[in-house]
């Protein structure tokens, strides 16, 4: 079974639909029009390019190419994490990349080798979308946790210092900050697990059902995805935070101001 294709003329209708939100934004004088247009154009172009790219990747289906692709999207995700978290790419590129890689690859491995077991194991139709989905979630989670952790430390530097004077090691002194950052960054994911299926059918499941999968199969995949997302999220958050510590503190155990991107002139 295949999903109904949408003819081009009717597809264009979708873009007309955008006039509605644009009208409201205009009326409210939010001044977001330009930004919205740019983001819609980018979204469309990127998805089409990826669609074309994926077509070839699926056709060629080579292990090497798949690995290369995953490496590329990991680097892109990592750059995005550091940029959005306001951290200096130069200082934290490697530890943050390693954290994201840990979270994504461990879960991807379990999915492919133990749970789904496609043939071949590296089948691009499974490997690529699963990696992309895990990575996308790790990316959003790590943006939150890194941003909260380091901005929290910067804001409460005196408190952190007072912990060091109470005999805390570096790890002990950052622990309260880490706990807070992880807790608040996981909250949205936990909340979405609580309500999933009641209100919203998640994107992948909707896609599969539209694509003709029997709902029970789609549900199994969805549960796998939710557990996988949560697991990879926690692993990548914890790994990124811990791995970044040696790069973020100086020999006096104080936060290096250089790790923040775009130091503003006072």
């Amino acid at each position, binding site marked *: 079974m295949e999903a109904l294709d949408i003819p081009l003329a009717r597809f264009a209708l979708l873009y007309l639909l955008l006039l509605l939100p644009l009208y409201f934004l205009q009326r409210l004088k939010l001044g977001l029009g330009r930004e919205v247009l740019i983001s819609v154009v980018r979204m469309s172009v990127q998805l089409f390019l990826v669609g074309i790219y994926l077509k070839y990747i699926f056709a060629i289906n080579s292990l090497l190419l798949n690995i290369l692709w995953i490496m590329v999207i990991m680097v892109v995700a990592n750059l995005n994490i550091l940029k959005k978290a306001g951290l200096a790419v130069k200082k934290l590129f490697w530890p943050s990349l390693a954290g994201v890689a840990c979270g994504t690859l461990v879960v991807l491995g379990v999915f492919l080798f133990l749970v789904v077991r496609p043939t071949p194991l590296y089948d691009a139709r499974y490997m690529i979308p699963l990696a992309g989905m895990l990575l996308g979630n790790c990316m959003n989670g790590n943006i939150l946790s890194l941003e909260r952790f380091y901005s929290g430390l910067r804001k*409460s530097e005196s*408190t952190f*210092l007072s912990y060091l004077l*109470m005999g*805390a090691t570096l790890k002990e002194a950052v622990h*309260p900050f880490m706990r807070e950052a992880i807790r608040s960054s996981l909250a949205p994911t936990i909340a979405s697990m609580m309500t999933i299926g009641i209100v919203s059918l998640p994107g992948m499941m909707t896609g599969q059902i539209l694509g003709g999968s029997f709902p029970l199969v789609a549900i199994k995949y969805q549960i796998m995805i939710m557990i996988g997302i949560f697991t990879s999220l926690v692993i990548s958050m914890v790994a990124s935070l811990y791995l970044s510590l040696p790069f973020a503190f100086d020999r*006096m*155990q104080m936060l290096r101001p250089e790790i923040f991107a775009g130091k503003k002139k*006072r």
Partner: protein
Amino acid sequence: MISFDAVTIGMQGRILMQDVSFSIMAGEKVVLCGKSGSGKTTLLKALVGGARITQGVIRVNGLAVLSENILQIRQELAYIPQEPSVSQETAAEDLLLPFSFKAHSGKEPTTAQIEAVLGRLLLDPVILRQKSATLSGGEKQRLVIARAILLNKRIFLADEITSALDAESKNAVFTFLLESEHTVLSISHDLEWIGRCNRVFIIENGILREEK
């Protein structure tokens, strides 16, 4: 015991403090005054390696404040920051936070010791069961002071620690810190506190001078 020798501290290209020199003997009670933003907190932080200095040497018990000595220096001092902050679930966990660190594990104070310290700061022990987030400003401030006291340190760095306290509990803190053999380097705008210290330093336009 504590000495600053021609210390200059710069902050993002501008000089905050220039050529600061002084020394403090064991047991002295020193208070640092100056306008907001004059660098008082930065000076205290520099003493425990929490702010970078551009020039000069700071010494604590003869040891220069450098990375190779920093762990030993930090053992000697207690630092009570300007904004008391609590991070644990309950007040008891916050009070005993230092004893969850490896450095002090197994050295938890007894209930009697805890109650004695809380009593001296006029804190009712029932607050220990309270959620930390619900403590009042003055209770938080005293809880953080109590936490520093429980570690039995000899040198206290105290950054405006009585700002949220009423006359009675302020007096209790005065008595503990200023009528003891502890060495105290403090920041305060409180005239009574200033009056009870032996030495008064003033920072103005990046220069530190002692008021005689």
